[in-house]
């Protein structure tokens, strides 16, 4: 047997012979030995050796996270600090979002754009006491840094926090676990962050994540990460969860994966991410890529990212072409079995005239046509702990 269209995180069978040692050329997570001790099956992803699953398997890990709390190691992601008096102004030349309006401890989803309005990366920006804390995707973090270094003025400093691990605790029981381990963190609302103490260990904790569930993302010194992971997993609600379930969880939550659902050829409007284009910044139109992006705003993009409901049991995966009759109208960019939906689902891009919910399309899988229907991107309702409206 061999995997079709094998991507790094899917390299399951090819990784079977000896997972006791990391492959050469792959970077090692601070928690590498801990993952292996927990039964993690390590695969190459974003140039790191990462756990795709543990002994329970992807399906059980996915469902556990939706019902309890899952601990994810996302230390492959880039943690950057952008500081200096003009840091907010400088970031606003590269991002379409309201950065200057962020209150301390507030965070926002944004996009790094190129001159053509294409998405170089999607990221989170948080205003913190030292500056702006930016978390970017692991697979493109070096490109992001080169882009930032090229465009940020000399009086703005970019620090790469490569001595820190990043863990995510996600699920309906995440709050009670944090209340027991890091009590002050449990007070945070969704998309807010603060410096918290775990004993004497400083943590930068945000209430955010990539599963659609309530949860926290915790930045911690790499050499403290294993003890902290142990402390979280000592709680009966917590199990370590691999990349495989992370992918199926975010797919059900409608969240795009950079490099698959977003890339340099997709714009924020095509990507259905106009919420990241703040009103003030649309009016100012003074960031890299603003003109082509705003020419499409709000609904003049030729294609759009949509959710797809799949008929039957056969998964429709990344790369499958979408048709109306003989006419090719789009392409699937992520797809697979959705454990909480109990059926295959997908997301992809379709021509604007076919992007309305309920539109019947066909996906081509191994030469066969599978009926699919344009559906909401969010298939499992988000369960965020939002701040009550004042």
């Amino acid at each position, binding site marked *: *047997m*061999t*995997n*079709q*269209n*094998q991507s790094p*995180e*899917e390299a*399951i*069978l090819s990784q*079977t*012979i*000896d997972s006791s040692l990391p492959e050469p050329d792959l970077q090692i997570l601070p928690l590498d030995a801990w993952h292996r001790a927990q039964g993690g099956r390590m695969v190459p992803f974003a140039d790191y050796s990462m756990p*795709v*699953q543990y002994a329970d*398997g*992807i*399906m*059980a890990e*996915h469902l556990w996270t939706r019902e309890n709390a899952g601990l994810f190691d996302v230390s492959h992601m880039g943690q950057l600090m952008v500081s200096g008096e003009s840091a907010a102004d400088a970031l606003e030349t590269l991002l379409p979002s309201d950065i200057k309006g962020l209150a301390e401890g507030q965070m926002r989803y944004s996009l790094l754009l190129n001159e053509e309005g294409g998405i170089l990366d999607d990221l989170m920006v948080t205003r913190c006491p030292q500056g702006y804390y930016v978390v970017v995707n692991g697979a493109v973090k070096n490109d992001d840094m080169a882009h930032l270094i090229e465009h940020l003025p000399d009086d703005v400093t970019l620090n790469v926090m490569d001595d820190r691990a990043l863990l995510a605790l996600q699920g309906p029981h995440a709050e009670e676990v944090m209340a027991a381990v890091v009590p002050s963190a449990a007070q945070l609302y969704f998309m807010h962050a603060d410096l918290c103490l775990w004993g004497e260990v400083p943590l930068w904790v945000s209430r955010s994540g990539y599963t659609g569930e309530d949860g926290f993302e915790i930045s911690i010194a790499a050499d403290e990460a294993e003890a902290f992971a142990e402390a979280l997993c000592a709680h009966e609600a917590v199990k370590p969860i691999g990349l*495989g379930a992370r*992918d*199926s969880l975010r797919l059900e939550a409608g969240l795009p994966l950079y490099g698959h659902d977003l890339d340099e050829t997709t714009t924020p409007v095509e990507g259905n991410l106009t919420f990241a284009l703040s009103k003030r910044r649309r009016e100012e139109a003074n960031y890299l890529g603003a003109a082509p992006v705003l020419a499409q705003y709000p609904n003049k993009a030729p294609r759009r990212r949509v959710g797809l409901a799949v008929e039957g*049991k*056969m*998964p429709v*995966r990344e790369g499958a072409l979408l048709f109306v009759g003989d006419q090719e109208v789009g392409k699937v960019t992520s797809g*697979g*079995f959705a*454990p909480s939906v109990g059926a*295959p689902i997908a997301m992809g891009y379709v021509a604007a005239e076919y992007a309305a919910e309920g539109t019947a399309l066909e996906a081509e899988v*191994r030469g066969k046509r599978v009926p699919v229907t344009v559906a909401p991107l969010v298939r499992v309702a988000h369960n965020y702990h939002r701040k009550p409206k004042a």
Partner: protein
Amino acid sequence: MTRYFTEDHEWIDVDGDVATVGITDFAQGQLGDVVYVELPAAGTALTKGGDAAVVESVKAASDVYAPVSGEVVESNAALEGDSALVNSDAEGEGWFFRMTLSDASELDGLMDATAYAAFVG
């Protein structure tokens, strides 16, 4: 009845001139939760090493190759309703298809249980 194994992690039980084919318990463990199996229809002509079936786990679709040449006589209808049989009983109820053998000498290069156990370590 003799059971053979391939380097692609299929098993094949030969009983006279009909053989039953599935994937090994080791393979299902590596794949994880199986959510769909695409099986060849009766009458399909298979060539040793050619595509015979597709097994889909949560994460990935994997090809299953024909361990020998011949013709499909039956596929396992139980997998349509319950693909998890591949996980729970890969080398029994989770069989994929039965086929005739057009050239029994193709079996000669396959492994027996002991050799396969050594192969997967």
